[in-house]
């Protein structure tokens, strides 16, 4: 079955002003395939065109070029209601003058469904969401989380084949956010519908998505499942965007040194130098005397050696943030600043000397020009 598959081809969106003159191109030619039943997250910094993309799928924005198909049908010129979609907005977009019941029933009433059917569907959905006690209330009388549930309910009642979420949790407090996150995930499990979920929060993206589409400036940077995205970022942007704290990225050059290769940070003196070992040397070979960006995740700087090739770096502690079972340690090695996630219940002091082990199997090198990862 592919009825919920969404296919985006060469999609472009250029906003125009009143006179039809182009003002801003928010989406610049993207291609994306979303499988039936998949939970796809669009993530990226604010203003990168996620909402625009989602709204084009919903039919709320005109498509400038390219095409969108849902379940194999091109929907470019279809009214939103005919696309088999439902959408949950960041501000919930509940109708303030209607009761919760009418909010959820509105779409069905417009579709001229039978009264019994409507009350049955709404009742069942409300019950499943724990809203059945407040059907006669108006949205003002509800808390943020309850409102968000109503918005969800309103979407579910339409029994769409594709759910669209535009930052649905960003108006909630932290605790509520975590709770709703898992509720939406559970909902996805139960309904099995395709869901496209927009967020700027990479934690949300990582925890919820089957696959994640990272966007920047109207372009897709990488589409992959969360682990791949984390382990094998395709470019500098993804490497820096995914992960918290972010990957350590140092700009420098590859030199031949003592018969081997070494990465040296760009600096007048006292530059951080990392002798390269292990498989990474093959990649580095192509960049001798050239600039690269050297990347390593904080958890790959550790105190004790695990298996694989390691390089020891001498560094001093700048600031330490003990978190209990582990610490985030801001290190200074030469002129280089590194963050390390060090396991164990330690306390670090400012100025303390630490020798960290850098796991050479987890190193990424990025081309400075293309910002792509070096394979």
């Amino acid at each position, binding site marked *: 079955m592919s009825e919920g598959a969404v296919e985006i081809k060469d999609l472009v969106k250029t906003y125009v002003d*009143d*006179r*039809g003159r182009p003002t801003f191109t928010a989406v610049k030619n993207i291609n994306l395939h979303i499988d039936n039943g998949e939970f796809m997250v669009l993530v990226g910094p604010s203003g990168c065109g996620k909402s625009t993309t989602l709204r084009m799928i*919903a*039919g*709320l924005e005109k498509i400038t070029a390219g095409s969108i198909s849902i379940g194999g049908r091109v929907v470019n010129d279809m*009214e*939103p*209601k005919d696309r088999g*979609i*439902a*959408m949950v*907005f*960041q*501000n919930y*977009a*509940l*109708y*303030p*003058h209607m009761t919760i019941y009418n909010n959820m029933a*509105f*779409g069905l009433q*417009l*579709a001229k469904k039978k009264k019994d059917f409507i009350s049955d569907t709404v009742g069942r959905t409300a019950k499943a969401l724990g809203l059945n006690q407040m059907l006669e209330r108006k949205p003002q009388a509800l808390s943020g989380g309850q409102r968000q549930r109503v918005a969800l309910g*309103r979407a579910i009642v*339409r029994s769409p084949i594709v759910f669209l979420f535009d930052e649905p949790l960003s108006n909630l407090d932290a605790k509520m956010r975590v709770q709703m996150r898992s509720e939406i995930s559970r909902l996805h499990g139960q309904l099995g519908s395709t869901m496209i979920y927009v967020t700027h929060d990479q934690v949300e993206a990582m925890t919820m998505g089957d696959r994640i589409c990272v966007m920047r400036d109207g372009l897709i940077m990488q589409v992959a499942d969360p682990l791949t995205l984390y382990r094998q970022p395709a470019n500098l942007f993804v490497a820096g965007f995914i992960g918290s704290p972010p990957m350590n990225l140092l700009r420098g050059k590859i030199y031949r040194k003592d018969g081997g290769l070494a990465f040296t940070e760009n600096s007048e003196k006292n530059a951080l130098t990392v002798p390269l070992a292990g498989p990474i040397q093959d990649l580095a070979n192509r960049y001798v005397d050239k600039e690269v960006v050297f990347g390593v995740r904080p958890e790959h700087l550790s105190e004790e050696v695990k298996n694989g090739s390691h390089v020891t770096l001498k560094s001093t502690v700048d600031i330490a943030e003990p978190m209990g079972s582990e610490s985030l340690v801001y290190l200074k090695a030469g002129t280089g600043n590194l963050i390390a996630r060090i396991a164990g219940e330690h306390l670090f002091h400012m100025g303390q000397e630490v020798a960290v082990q850098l796991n050479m199997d987890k190193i990424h090198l990025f081309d400075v020009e293309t910002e792509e990862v070096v394979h």
Partner: protein
Amino acid sequence: MTTVQTPRKEESQTGTVRKRLTPTQKIAIRKVLAHAFLIGFIILVLVPFIMVISASFRKGNFAPSELIPDKISLEHWKFVLGIPYQEVVNPATGETRIVKAATPPLLWFWNSIKVSFIASAGIIFLSGSAAYGFARLYFKFRSATLGTLLILQMFPMVLALVAFYVILDFTGQYIPWLGLNTQPGLIMIYLGGISSYIWMIKGYFETIPPSMEESARIDGATQFQTFIRILLPISAPIFAVVFILAFIGYMSEYPVASVVLQSSDNWTLAVGANSFLYEQEKLWGRFSALAVLSGVPITVIFLLCQRFIVGGLVSGGVKE
């Protein structure tokens, strides 16, 4: 919020030679001053109204000048309400006559209510739908049109009287009930003054997030349904404000009404009230009775809707 009340620190030792008051004393003095000022101002506001009420009950036609009438009489009220009453014509002989208004002045008030009500309802319809177009739909020269509306509306109605006369004279030849000296004709002209209201309503629409209408669209509502069933109910407060402002504005409109409406049974309140105050003979008593009778209901309505209006004025920022 509190410009005056925030407790202030005593000035330092090196400070003033002035007699030192404790902060509590200072505040007490300020409070007394504030009350005195406000009460004084309220007296200035109320005295004219009290004098008018008094003049309406005073025998004879004197300009409002007393707080309590010396000789009480209901003659002006009777006249305004169209009730006949006896008047002494010649005090020496005791000769009397029956006085009854040919056109009961209360009719003018009723005419004004009619004209203002229908015109305001029309304004709501015209400016509401246009504001929707300007706020939510996109078309060429949208902002240019909006600016033009605002600027052209600056042309005062008074100066367009010649043209209004021409228009109504023309329409009257073909549609007699829409010509000169008809209330529908006047209402029609009043319907032209929509642009400040368009701005007000549009401003309000723009404070409403479009996502509700988008959500309705996904739910299957047509554009028109979205407008009628989502945006309009949400915007009820601004429509109330516009209605009241337009209504009060039309109740007070004088020049156009005085030119368009010629026969006294068609007059509006403004024209009729002014007609009592001829250069030669100023019938203050009758005017006062009419003013009280018609001013009170409107004032009460306004005060009841005060909260609405204030909100709308602040958000719309347009004076009429």
